[in-house]
């Protein structure tokens, strides 16, 4: 699980850096954005590989357990991770690689991976259908009201949490304020 925790943290940091580079003097640096995207991809691949290993192990004793409970963590994380990438749309071509590349790879992965016993692993975009009884983060409960704002804030929450273990998670903030804060 350490690999997936580290991978997740790396992805979150990369997103934070991509966001903050938008306000940098001199505009977006293509080289840096590309490297960050590659790190994110690399971390995401390792994260999924780690998850798949975990799930294979889980599949063995799956038959005795409730099927949905096990998939909470990875599914939630996957949707969470993919959605911020989608909300990263930018008119400038320099950043196009980031969201669209991720989305394309996400779709490819979906096509390549055989459907597992847990169909809820498949990504369904922002409007992911999750059973209400699943324990989930506050951000996703509010997803039905304003998906764009809170997907971003949940990512930033993670970023803050990873980098400051002692601090309490801040309240969700609107999108504009979040970008201004970067």
């Amino acid at each position, binding site marked *: 699980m350490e690999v997936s925790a*580290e*991978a997740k943290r*790396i992805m979150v*940091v990369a997103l934070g*850096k991509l966001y903050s580079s938008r306000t940098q*003097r*001199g*505009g977006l*640096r*293509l*080289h*840096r954005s*590309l*490297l960050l995207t*590659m*790190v994110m991809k*690399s*971390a995401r691949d*390792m994260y999924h590989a780690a998850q798949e290993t975990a799930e294979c192990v889980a599949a063995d004793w799956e038959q005795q357990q409730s099927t949905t409970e096990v998939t909470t963590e990875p599914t939630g994380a996957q949707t969470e991770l993919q959605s911020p990438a989608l909300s990263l749309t930018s008119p*400038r*071509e*320099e950043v*196009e*690689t980031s969201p*669209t*590349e991720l989305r*394309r790879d996400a779709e490819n992965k979906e096509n390549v991976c055989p459907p597992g016993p847990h169909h809820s692993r498949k990504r369904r975009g922002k409007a992911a259908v999750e059973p209400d009884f699943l324990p989930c983060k506050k951000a996703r409960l509010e997803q039905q009201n304003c998906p764009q704002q809170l997907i971003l804030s949940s990512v930033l929450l993670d970023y803050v949490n990873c*980098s400051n273990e002692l601090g309490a998670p801040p309240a969700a903030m609107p999108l504009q304020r979040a970008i201004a804060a970067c």
Partner: protein
Amino acid sequence: MGEDTDATPTLNHRGFLPDHNYVTEADIISTVEFNHTGELLATGDKGGRVVIFQREPECKIEPFSQGEYNVYSTFQSHEPEFDYLKSLEIEEKINKIRWLPQQNAAHFLLSTNDKTIKLWKVSERDKRPEGYNLKDEEGRIKDLSTVTSLQVPVLMPMDLMVEVSPRRVFANAHTYHVNSISVNSDYQTYMSADDLRINLWHLDITDRSFNIVDIKPTNMEDLTEVITAAEFHPHHCNLFVYSSSKGTLRLCDMREAALCDKHSKLFEEPEDPSARSFFSEIVSSVSDVKFSHSGRYLLTRDYLTAKVWDLNMESKPLETYQVHDYLRSKLCSLYENDCIFDKFECAWNGSDSVIMTGAYNNFFRMFDRNTKRDVTLEASRESSKPRAVLKPRRVCAAGGKRRKDDISVDSLDFTKKILHTAWHPTENIIAIAATNNLYIFQDKLNSEMH
């Protein structure tokens, strides 16, 4: 290679308050370059200024005062600009300076920021005409009634004045950020490289350039690598090399095609699968590439190593030097504090026997290719009193066996980075840029190259 190096630090005279350790960002040196004879040394900074140092002629009376570098000229090369179409500010930071070989009394250099390259003429004036008929000494028009005879103006000596004027401005040719410029050995053309394209210019023509490399994919989503540095071969005017963020080098021949997208040679080292990590791509990105003076070898720098390649062998580098391998286990922290994106430059000495590159904590390293010995030195005020001999430094692993004067990896100051270094073309004189300070070290014992 002598380790007994006399230190004659010449300090950049701006913007450093020793009390507060506060550095004005505009004063951070962003490029350093000797001219072809080594007589002049140019530095560019983040504020768009260029400072040129000149070496004092050697004085036979007092041998130790010879060859010091003093400020020759300072000028503002680039100003911040605003691209209204893209709503982007264009930084005035000087990314690169390259000197042209001297062909007459004046010196010429090219300086570039992210978007615009400029050609500057640096000339001296030590005489001025005096004795005008219509103007007086201050330049005021004389009352014609006071003019009773005519005289021919004569040239009289005056205090030396260094004049710098922009001769050419090469603009609007780059969509992405310019990272390199390189003057061709034909002394008529030069190239400028940005993240995705390389353009060839004629030094006299500013309104057009030829695109010789274009790696922009049709669909930007397919982008996998960018150009990180480019240089012309020192002798063959048709050959140039460019490095990529994937750690590859491509040698291109302009005789083959107008658009050199297809390389003549591809230099790539197969990745070691055991060394794979999250950050493999970032650390393998080449930050600088330099031809050797002979033209036979290439020197590249990536985040952790410096490599020497033989132009005749594409499969792997000839030599690999670990610059700061103790950072390999710290990559995650270096990624979080952004240091992993630092772009270090590298340099050859005049005889191609020693290579040099910078590191953190104001350390810089030199590797002797023949003896295989290496040394770590520090560029700091405390350790660089004039005429002092630099003491070799050592970095030890955290918690490892420590000698006196060793520094532990965890105590390294990552804000003090030496990204830009330059080596005199013929002598053992090096220029080290440490944030906003310039250090010039001379090896008095072994001043000739061997």
